[in-house]
């Protein structure tokens, strides 16, 4: 009969080597993370001219917009302040009348302020999306959807970022917004969407 000694290197050898326990736990964590990533990162594509963006597969496309206008997509849910993604062409650039990015930002601000209540630009900064340089305009406004009155909701403060990206003679717009209180919770999703941007 062999002696039942407890070896000092009990992590690597012995009757119950501990490395097996640690490995099982690490494998489970990695497997869980991988499966969660697979489920949460399933995406669909929207293609607009030379721009491709991937969005979560369970977001819904707004059927009211014509394909040539762009796309508006939103996460499923009852609230009018669900996260939204809009992809479109803001304007076509005229080589005879060049405009600067700051001018584009100002124009965008004025047009938005005309349609959105309490619209305010919170910040604007240079951004690189899909390897192309553009500008990110962070904004806020108050959303009070008349058609959502049956949902007993109060007006909601929305926060969003417009990415204005000049490319091949057009200024493309990628807009992401959600209720300001939920912005942090959706930051990862927004970052994933932005990382998926591809210019052809």
């Amino acid at each position, binding site marked *: 009969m062999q*002696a039942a000694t407890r070896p000092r290197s009990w992590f690597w050898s012995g009757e119950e080597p501990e490395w097996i326990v640690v*490995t099982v736990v690490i494998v*489970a964590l990695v497997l*869980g993370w991988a499966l969660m990533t697979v489920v949460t990162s399933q995406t669909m594509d929207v293609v607009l001219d030379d721009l491709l963006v991937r969005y979560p597969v*369970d977001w819904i496309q707004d059927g009211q917009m014509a394909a040539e206008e762009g796309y508006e997509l939103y996460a499923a849910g009852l609230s009018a302040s669900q996260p939204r993604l809009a992809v479109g062409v803001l304007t076509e650039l005229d080589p005879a009348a060049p405009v600067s990015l700051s001018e584009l930002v100002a124009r965008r601000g004025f047009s938005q302020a005309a349609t959105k209540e309490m619209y305010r630009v919170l910040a604007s900064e240079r951004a690189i999306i899909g390897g192309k340089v553009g500008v990110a305009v962070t904004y806020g406004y108050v959303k009070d959807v008349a058609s959502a009155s049956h949902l007993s909701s109060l007006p909601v403060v929305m926060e969003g970022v417009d990415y204005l990206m000049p490319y091949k003679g057009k200024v493309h717009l990628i807009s992401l917004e959600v209720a300001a209180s939920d912005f942090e919770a959706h930051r990862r999703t927004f970052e994933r969407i932005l990382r998926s941007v591809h210019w052809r």
Partner: protein
Amino acid sequence: MGERICCVCHELLEEGAKSLGGRYFCESHYAKIARDRQSVWRTTIVALLGLLAYVLLVELIVSLTKPTLSGLPLVVVGVIIALIPALLWLIVFYLQDRLEPEPKEHVLGIFALGALLALTIGLPLRNELFPMPAGLMAGREVVVELLRSVFILGFSQEYLKYAVVRYTVFNSPEFDERVDGIIYCAASALGFATVINLDYILRSGGALLHVAAIRVTITALAQASFSGMMGYFLGRAKFENMGKWWLPGGLALVAVLNGLVTFLLGEATTAGLGYTPIYGLIIVAVVAVLTFGTLFILMRRINAATLASV
């Protein structure tokens, strides 16, 4: 032939030393291994009943006094509520353990280590590294929640509580009876649960008192039940050669059960925006009774078999 060493106190043994399940024992530890500590089971029953009585008491106080606490006073009362399940168990354990004592400093140390690991690893892992993703549709949300409960929360929580015992007291001579696995694992789990409960109270800014009482009880009972199971696996591994897959297999089993029950608790207690914690309390009480009942039967059988072989 190699030297013979007592697997508990590591004392060198003579030829013909007692052995069991491939392990050698000195005379004193051989006599203790199969001891059936009734105090452990009494503690468990009293603590279980005490926790249910505690929930009823808080419910009664809240319904009679209708407290209107808010802000700091609410948080302070919430913190007290979060600490009570662990305090109750420790007090009951202390009172029951007077006849067959386990070193108090070891039990408290394990409790504190369980709390420390929950604070430094368990909570950041759950809240920061693997939070529940926002904005998923209902069907996918359920799948992700199930995966997260089993693979992330189940395995990480059970490993941390297991590690507290395995890497400290497990190899010490104080771990000298099979049932010690259950005692120390329960202490580790209650330390862990206390931090989870405090996190819940502080994050929610106090919470409704009777809801908080039920919720902290659910967490404490669930964590103690799963760790009780793990304690069984550790208790046997210490005194018998169970093979190299015994502990990993045990941990995986307990982690999956933890994940499934956590998921079930989430599904049973929340419907839309509503929260009905009483269903969770019923589920976890059933789980606790089944777990400790099974452990009691298993321990008695194994100890009886050991005594019969003496």
